[in-house]
């Protein structure tokens, strides 16, 4: 068998092995790649930065543990930023699994990094509400019918942070961390477009391309995937150098990303090289490898 053919018909398990190595090795060696924020991320940062201290911020954790590696770093960066700026943050989720994600923040991050911030005064956990996009709709129409107590069952009126919250529009911005449906798209459709509250946030790299069409008219800004998170982290570090030594998870996890991305690019280039060499030589077998892409 000629070399181009061997390359074209490479066992996919070899590719799997290479990918495994490309993820594991950087995880062990921990290289650090710094990034600078792009405008679409910077605009979230600027919005949070410009709000007067004490602004009411709504932060929805619309994801579960399976997408946590991508979205947790965004959650942490946003919580650090809003808390540093002195905003009053309400945590919320439309995903049943989101409850656990909020708990990670309220139990682990806040007491350690912001010991002076108090539950019920500086932040509150409104918990999970079923009903997908319909839940957002209900909250916009009549906030208190759906949300009348925090996740522990304490009535909103008994908590200083929420005592004055009667309507969704009492929040100045809505932030959502999105893994799928429901998420930013529904927040835009049911809250942003209808009630006029600025909506922004982050999405996994999968949902992000679908959200681009809403930017900048309906969506103030968007963090796409781990790269978006690492951009936000660098914006945060630029403005608040105190965070330079905090664990910047997204920045750390960019190592495996860089290596695998380069690996995939090299593989694609190699495949094309072999394809063209194989096509020009005798015994033309071009087009027979794998199943052609005939869509469109």
């Amino acid at each position, binding site marked *: 068998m000629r070399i181009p053919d061997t390359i074209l018909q*490479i066992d*996919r398990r070899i*590719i*799997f092995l*290479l*990918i*495994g190595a490309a*993820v594991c090795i950087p995880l062990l060696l921990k290289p650090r*790649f*710094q*990034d600078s924020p*792009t405008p*679409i991320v910077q605009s979230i940062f600027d919005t949070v930065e410009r709000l007067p201290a004490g602004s009411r911020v709504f932060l929805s954790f619309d994801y579960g*543990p*399976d997408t946590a590696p991508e979205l947790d770093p965004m959650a942490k960066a946003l919580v650090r930023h809003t808390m540093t700026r002195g905003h009053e943050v309400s945590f919320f989720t439309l995903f*049943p699994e989101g*409850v656990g994600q909020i708990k990670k923040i309220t139990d682990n991050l806040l007491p350690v990094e912001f010991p002076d911030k108090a539950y019920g005064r500086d932040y509150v956990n409104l918990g999970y509400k*079923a*009903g*997908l*996009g*319909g839940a957002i*709709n*209900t909250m916009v*129409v009549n906030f208190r019918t759906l949300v009348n107590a925090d996740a522990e069952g304490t009535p909103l009126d008994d908590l200083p942070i929420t005592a004055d919250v009667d309507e969704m529009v009492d929040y100045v911005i809505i932030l959502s961390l999105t893994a799928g449906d429901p998420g930013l798209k529904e927040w835009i459709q049911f809250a942003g477009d209808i009630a006029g509250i600025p909506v922004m946030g982050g999405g996994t790299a999968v949902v992000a*391309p*679908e959200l*681009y*069409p809403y*930017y900048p008219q309906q969506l103030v800004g968007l963090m*796409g*995937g781990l*790269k978006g998170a690492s951009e936000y982290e660098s914006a945060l570090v630029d403005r608040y150098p105190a965070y330079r030594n905090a664990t910047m998870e997204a920045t750390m996890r*960019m190592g495996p*990303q*860089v290596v*695998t*991305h*380069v*690996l*995939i*690019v090299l*593989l*694609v280039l190699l*495949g*094309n090289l072999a*394809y*063209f060499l194989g096509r020009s030589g005798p015994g033309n077998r*071009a*087009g027979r*490898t*794998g199943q*052609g*892409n005939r869509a*469109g």
Partner: protein
Amino acid sequence: MRRRIPLIITFIIGVVLITGYFVTRGPFNTLYESFSDYFAIITVFAFILGGGSLLKIHLKRVSSRATDWPYSMVTLVAFLVTLVIGLFKVGNPGGMGGEILASGSWLRFMFDGVYNPLSATMFSLLAFFVASASYRAFRARTKEATILLSAALVILLGRTPVGAWLTAWMPESLAFLELPNLANWIMAWPNTAGQRAIMIGIALGVIATSLRIILGIERNYLGRGE
């Protein structure tokens, strides 16, 4: 009778919900806003059918000693044990009134210990499949495939610091051609254009299909003949 009544139900509920979108009060709006709730409730009734189907298939495999029947036993046991734990809140510190996923409950353990790692690992298989699919599909066979491939490569490189490093030599006047900028430009403009065309098309498809359903033109789901 058996065919007409379902068509009438479809028509009425369809028209009522559409009206409910525009009318802010009264029964129309109540129905529009509660439809998701209603649907979720009916889904729970449907679980009886789904669960029945699951039990039937695996019991049949076990009783006929079909290939791989011991694995069907695994499914059956796992299903029944989890169902009992879940429905009766077995091991829930709050008893029957406790939150279903209260920490420390057995169902919580099933979720954290079994469901979660399995789900996350299945999901992570995509890292491998993304690589094998791009290796095979991204070949410059046709003009269309070449466009697909080029866009993908620009984004792949532009999404990492390597992209910036590769094109850092470019003069200031050509800064827009640096890979990260090019990648962002593709995402913000041509990608948005394509996404929008697809979204508008889908919206029209949904509108037309909904209309065909409400009017009873599309009625395959009720079976076609009498």
